[in-house]
């Protein structure tokens, strides 16, 4: 039996959990839920030994814990990125291969091998961990946690970023695991609660506000309502008319990819693909993890080096003819999990939104008063009206995501690329984001490319679909 007795804990960012009284009995499986920034992940992290105990006590928390979370994933990726700038002069770091990341001393190689097989990761064991896509690196984290014979599994948003095949596989696998291992799960999406969850903890402002048994249907429904607070009608702030983007020829396509291919040394990711996006067309892009969705988008944004070796026409430029990437990026708003990992900046919330006018990570240009006003309108819309001067890197994961979506939309770009924008958001914020995207689609001045795994996140106004398949010759 694990017990937290009147526990107060402080985290690096100054965030506090206060007076937590919580008891987890043998054979119980808990779900922790709440709004973004409420302290869900913090409560889970306490079990994993994080945070500084200010008062109260804990007992019975096992030492061998399997922990999966965005924070843990980001930590590992950051450690890998740190290795990457190992060159003072002239060495290119190749990064740690996936095999080494998975097969540590704590891991049972038989279970790990089985999971590698089930997740279909065999083909990338030798690849550098930091080169994996978001979903792929998430799978690696899961394999590590699930194969260490843990006495407690802490799964913070385990399904986020997984394609539907992996999602189903993991759900099935967990049904076996919970027979002998207690699970504490953190989930933003109520509709994903697995059947084995027996208790729900609702966290708000760092306090454990409600503890509900699954069988208590009335309490359960109320909790669901609480997370589903209806958003009022949204008004999207206007663009900055003083510094507008150069206009495009409305008769020409925004993007035209002709017979493009993306090749890596060990595989062909995309082969002979044509894609044309006309002004005011909205697209949904889907495909399993590792099918090349993000790589394809980075050909358009100019972030993939092979944009110079393919026949690519974007925003009036045939790529590779003396245009700079900043001339391309000015037409694009972009959000992805990778961007969030790169956006490790201590600048203020207001500046993060303003940086969308300059396509920079951090702000390095003098901004106008009008741009500051617009940024403040966006902050108000997101319910952060009085937090404009706070530092971005102290925000919760979900709040950061909302800010980056506002950053992508702030200049009303002709093309808005949303690469799994709802990853890491709770129900309320997810609805807020989807509503924002629908408004943008309806305004018909922006074309949207929307990438997601969740079929239920359909957006009104999207009627073009591109589905990528996993390349077959990737052995």
């Amino acid at each position: 039996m694990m017990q937290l007795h009147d526990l107060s804990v402080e985290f690096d960012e100054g965030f506090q959990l206060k007076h937590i009284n919580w008891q987890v009995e043998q054979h119980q499986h808990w779900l922790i839920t709440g709004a973004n920034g409420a302290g869900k992940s913090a409560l889970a992290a306490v079990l994993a030994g994080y945070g500084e105990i200010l008062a109260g006590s804990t007992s019975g928390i096992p030492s061998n814990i399997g922990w999966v979370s965005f924070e843990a994933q980001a930590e590992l990726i950051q450690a890998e990125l740190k290795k990457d700038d190992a060159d003072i002069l002239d060495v290119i770091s190749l990064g740690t291969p996936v095999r080494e990341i998975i097969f540590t001393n704590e891991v049972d190689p038989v279970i790990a091998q089985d999971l590698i097989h089930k997740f279909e990761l065999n083909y990338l064991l030798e690849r550098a961990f930091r080169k994996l896509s978001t979903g792929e690196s998430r799978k690696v984290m899961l394999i590590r946690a699930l194969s260490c014979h843990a006495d407690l599994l802490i799964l913070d948003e385990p399904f986020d970023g997984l394609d539907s095949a992996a999602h189903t596989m993991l759900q099935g696998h967990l049904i076996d695991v919970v027979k002998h291992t207690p699970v504490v799960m953190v989930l933003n999406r109520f509709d994903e609660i697995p059947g084995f969850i027996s208790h729900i903890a609702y966290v708000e402002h760092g306090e454990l506000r409600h503890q509900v048994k699954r069988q208590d249907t009335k309490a359960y429904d109320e909790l669901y309502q609480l997370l589903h607070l209806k958003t009022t009608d949204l008004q999207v702030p206007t663009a900055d008319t003083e510094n507008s983007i150069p206009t495009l020829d409305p008769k020409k396509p925004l993007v035209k990819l002709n017979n493009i291919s993306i090749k890596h040394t060990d595989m062909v990711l995309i082969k002979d693909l044509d894609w044309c996006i006309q002004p005011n067309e909205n697209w949904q892009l889907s495909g399993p993890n590792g099918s090349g969705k993000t790589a394809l988008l980075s050909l358009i944004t100019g972030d993939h080096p092979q944009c110079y070796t393919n026949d690519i026409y974007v925003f009036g430029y045939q790529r590779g003819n003396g245009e700079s990437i900043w001339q391309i990026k000015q037409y694009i708003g972009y959000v992805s999990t990778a961007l969030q990992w790169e956006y490790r900046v201590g600048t203020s919330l207001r500046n993060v939104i303003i940086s969308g006018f300059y396509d920079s990570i951090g702000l390095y240009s003098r901004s106008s008063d009008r741009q500051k006003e617009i940024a403040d309108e966006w902050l108000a819309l997101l319910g952060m009206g009085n937090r404009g001067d706070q530092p971005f890197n102290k925000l919760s994961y979900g709040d950061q995501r909302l800010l980056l979506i506002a950053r992508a939309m702030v200049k009303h770009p002709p093309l808005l690329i949303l690469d799994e924008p709802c990853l890491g958001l709770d129900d309320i914020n997810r609805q807020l984001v989807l509503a924002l995207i629908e408004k943008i689609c309806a305004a018909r001045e922006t074309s949207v490319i929307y990438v997601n795994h969740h079929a239920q996140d359909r957006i009104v106004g999207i009627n073009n679909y591109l589905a990528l398949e996993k390349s077959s010759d990737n052995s």
Partner: protein
Amino acid sequence: MSNNYFNTLPLREQLEQLAKCRFMHMDEFTEGVDALKGKKMVIIGCGAQGLNQGLNLRDSGLDVSYTLRQSAIDEKRQSFKNASENGFTVGTYEELIPTADIVLNLTPDKQHSPVVEAVMPLMKQGACLSYSHGFNIVEEGMKIRDDLTVIMVAPKCPGSEVRAEYVRGFGVPTLIAVHEDNDPQGHGLALAKAYAVGTGGHKAGVLMSSFIAEVKSDLMGEQTILCGMLQTGSLLCFDKMIDKGVDAGYASKLIQYGWETVTEALKYGGVTNMLDRLSNPAKIKAFDLSEELKVIMRPLYNKHQDDIINGTFSRTMMADWANDDVNLLGWRAETGETAFEKTPAGDMEISEQEYFDHGILMVAMVKAGVELAFETMTAAGIIADSAYYESLHETPLIANTIARKKLYEMNATISDTAEYGCYLYNHACLPLLGDFMKDIDTDVIGRGLSSDDNGVDNARLIEVNEALRSHPVEAIGATLRGHMADMKKIV
């Protein structure tokens, strides 16, 4: 045989060249990359600098390709893969050099002479040859064809950061220079500025310097404070702790991560901030130790600077190049065998503050090294801005490599030139500090001052604070860090 260029100049010109250094204004870059638009840029070498600079230049709309030796292409070496997998055209010297308007030599120092001798006859009339370090011109006295323009563009950061900062929409501080003997069309500066814009350097600050000032300050910084002091300090501090019975794993960890932790404070607020992280008694202790160290080590810093200025250093090193690097490789192996290098860091927790509290001597060594390097460089006629970048600014970058894999990583990632100088320094400095170390105990390295005595004399504390804050490296540091912060943050 080489002929030291610097030594051929009259004193008046030597002094003038050494003193060249000016922080350029943003307005000087309004023409962007125009001077290079449509020009063919061919990069020799595709290591971290070569690749990342090339990626930036291409993303700025410039025409970039890579030339490698035939053997590197045939054997598909890493440099070939770096370039071709990123979608660049790769060709031999014969194929690409004759088409180039500007040739960017981004190979290691040691290869400069053979590389330049091989490409120069192939370069077209009136083209430009660019370096990122001036060793070949200044120390080896390479004579470049009269019709060619010779410039230098040197980002003051590792290649990976040159790329990462560009992608964020920023850049890294960059030094540019024109070799005045080779500027027949008078457009060297325009090309260098456009190149700096192409790599994003103009956003983070550009120093206009000379080949000579760059070489003489770069060599001095890397072999004394940056690499030499950290290596000598690591070995002495570790052996002392072991001698006094400190746990070996703890001692190893304190040093491996200690340099990075204490110099992080240096990066934000100079020597003053680093010392301010200590308690008052510890600060005074560190100050006193560093004063003592400065007296003992000053002749050594002077000797390094003198040998660099008069060419003794480069002559000795080039003799070792010619002798198959026997000295370098031997010293590298010796470093690998030291007790510090062979003792793995323990898995105990050491808090950020503990690195300061238990590493008072390390703080004192960094302070003494930074100030001595700065003082010696400026006394030799190098401008304070240059001296700051080559001492204090780069110390955290090198400390970071020790945190990764100790001295091995540091020596593997710095240039061979820096590594050679580092060993020279270490060999001289270890015996020099022998007597000093005899009086050292674990209160200043390993265990910290005893907490029952936290009192200090007011007058002495005021004196120490005043001395810290009034050192000239602090004044220039505040100004230059201010420039960076202005550009980095919103104004």
